[in-house]
């Protein structure tokens, strides 16, 4: 479970200070699907980065299962990400020189699993996203949808508790977008993941259990206003 209390994130831009997230208090239950909408530059990705430990809040606390992320050392946060948090990006962010299987395997390297164990888990992960026959293909040899599937497999191969998806369908056509969202929903249900999904698409957002809207750093959750 995530518990955010009065979280603020400020960025310095020249002489000005820009609040990307302001006084955000939020609880995300285990297994919940929260969609976050909002215009570009209003703090959606910043919120995701804070939830994933990729950035630290300027003030406030972010707790994941009782652990205050902002109090952890960098190596502890990194370990937490390696074990418990999966990321999916709009631009897929696959390593271009590694095959689909090797990209998925990259997520297991920090866990120091043996080579045989890694291979087994990679095969399972690729099969679960329907990419078993594309294991040896490089990202440049796959379509956008296939690349995003590989990215999903990479995020889920470590069996995380949390999945953070930043505009996962932003670079896909309509049909592929539906495929990916259907896949994500299926996996969310099957695995009981806590899913936080940032999207511009209202239709996609409505599929979530709760929808939050970021506006100038303030989050208002559907039915509940953030203070």
């Amino acid at each position, binding site marked *: 479970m995530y518990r955010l209390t009065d979280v603020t994130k400020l960025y310095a831009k020249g002489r000005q200070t820009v609040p990307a997230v302001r006084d955000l208090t939020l609880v995300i239950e285990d297994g919940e699907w929260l969609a976050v909408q909002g215009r570009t530059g209003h703090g959606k*990705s910043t919120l995701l980065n804070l939830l994933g430990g990729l*950035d630290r809040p300027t003030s406030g606390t972010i707790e994941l299962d009782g652990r205050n992320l902002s109090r952890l050392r960098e190596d502890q946060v990194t370990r937490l990400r390696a074990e418990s948090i999966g990321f999916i990006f709009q631009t897929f962010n696959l390593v271009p020189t590694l095959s689909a299987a090797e990209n998925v395997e990259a997520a297991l390297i920090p866990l120091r699993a043996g080579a045989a164990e890694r291979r087994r888990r990679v095969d399972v992960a690729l099969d679960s996203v329907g990419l078993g026959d594309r294991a040896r293909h490089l990202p440049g040899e796959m379509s956008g949808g296939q690349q995003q599937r590989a990215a999903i497999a990479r995020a889920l191969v470590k069996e995380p508790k949390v999945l953070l998806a930043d505009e996962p369908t932003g670079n896909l056509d309509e049909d592929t977008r539906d495929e990916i969202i259907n896949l994500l929903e299926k996996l969310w249900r099957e695995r009981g993941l806590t899913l936080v999904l940032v999207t511009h698409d209202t239709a996609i957002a409505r599929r979530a259990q709760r929808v939050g809207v970021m506006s100038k750093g303030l989050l208002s959750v559907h039915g509940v206003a953030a203070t």
Partner: protein
Amino acid sequence: MFFITYLRRELRRRMRQAIFIALGLALGIGLVVTVTAASAGVKKAQSDVLKSLYGVGTDVTVTGAAPKPPTPGSGPPKGGQTFQISPAGAQVCNDGKCHSAAGQTIDHLGSASYNPISQSEVAAVSRLKGVRAAAGGLALSDTSITIPKKFGQPGAPLPTPNSFNVQGVDTSHLSLGPLSAGTITSGRSLTSSDAHADVAVVDSGYAKSSKLKVGSTVKVVGHSFKVVGIVAQPQAGSPPQVFIPLARAQALGKAAGKSLKNEVNTIYVKASSAADIPAVQNEIKKLLPSGTVTTASSLASQVTGSLSSTAKLANDLGRWLSILALIAAFAVASLLTMAAVTRRVREFGTLKALGWRSRRIIAQVMGESLVIGIVGGVAGVALGFAGAAIITAVAPQLSATVASATGQQVVSAGGGAARGFSPTVPHTVAVPMSATVTAAAVVAAVVLAVIGGLLAGSFASWRIARLRPADALARVA
């Protein structure tokens, strides 16, 4: 292994850049190897010159003090010989008695470079602590001057000295002295039984120019010596051309008009170990304060010519050029590696998001840089070998020059104040220039390659360590 796979694929992706960096490193390292090889070749040439001056087994050499030059009007020493050149013609004077030298050949065996040392001093030196062996020798010049019959008349040719070096060899200590540096190519060397015989070993170059072979006769101050062997010597500034037994050289030679019986002018000393050389040098200086005591390293300054210039060039300019080339190569490698890391910021941010620690990513980048460095090192060694081969093939022969005195005194009494001088004959020999790549140079090249690779990777690693994942992911691909 994932590390190797990732490394290999990444290098293949930026193959052109990797080759460019490796090439830059190769050029820098290749220059270092080539300059080191040239320097080693020059050092070897210098060493060969020095060996032939004093022999392979000699650690310390003692020579008699240089005689004082004649002052004008002082006249010849007792028993000495002088020429007088005046409008009246040429005269040769012995012990103050002068006669016309026209049409005569004056032949003299002596040394104006070194005063004699008593042969008993050789035994004293051999008894010093740290001395394994000592042997005496006579380094002499046989100089003949033929005075033309019409010398002094208008249009008459001038007399010119002809000279060749004669070495009196202690045949009971053949491992010391210049003869030990040579290789007998025909006949035999001198033996202990030749101590009083009229036999000679002749330098191969001199034998060729003088049309001598084993069995021929060579004359030393008019005395005939039978050639029993031909010796090939390392090129030297002033290699002895004829080797005769010491006792015969003592009997025939003169110093300031006096016989050289029981005299030597050079003592060759072999130390018990290299560590003993400085102490031995000091002890000999105390024993023979008037002598000149030198070791191999101090002889280098006596050799002039293009060999010396090339040595300076290789050591000074060559070294600095190599350093500059290496700095440039390292700088280019570092900059290009940094640029490559900058292009991969998003990739590294993603890996951090996956839970990769900075040091894991740094190890990946350092591994890539190291591979490029090693490839550059191997190519650099190959370039170094090629450079050394080119130098050996096309470099002009170097020259080493040492002036040696003829042993004559010439006093000119015409047209003004009398002037005296001791004519010298410069001995210049060609020294082949070769460049040798040593094992140490290859090891140094590999070490430089590794350093170059690690240096390039370390700047990039610093960048990675400071990378904030959120910032990295925000970069547009």
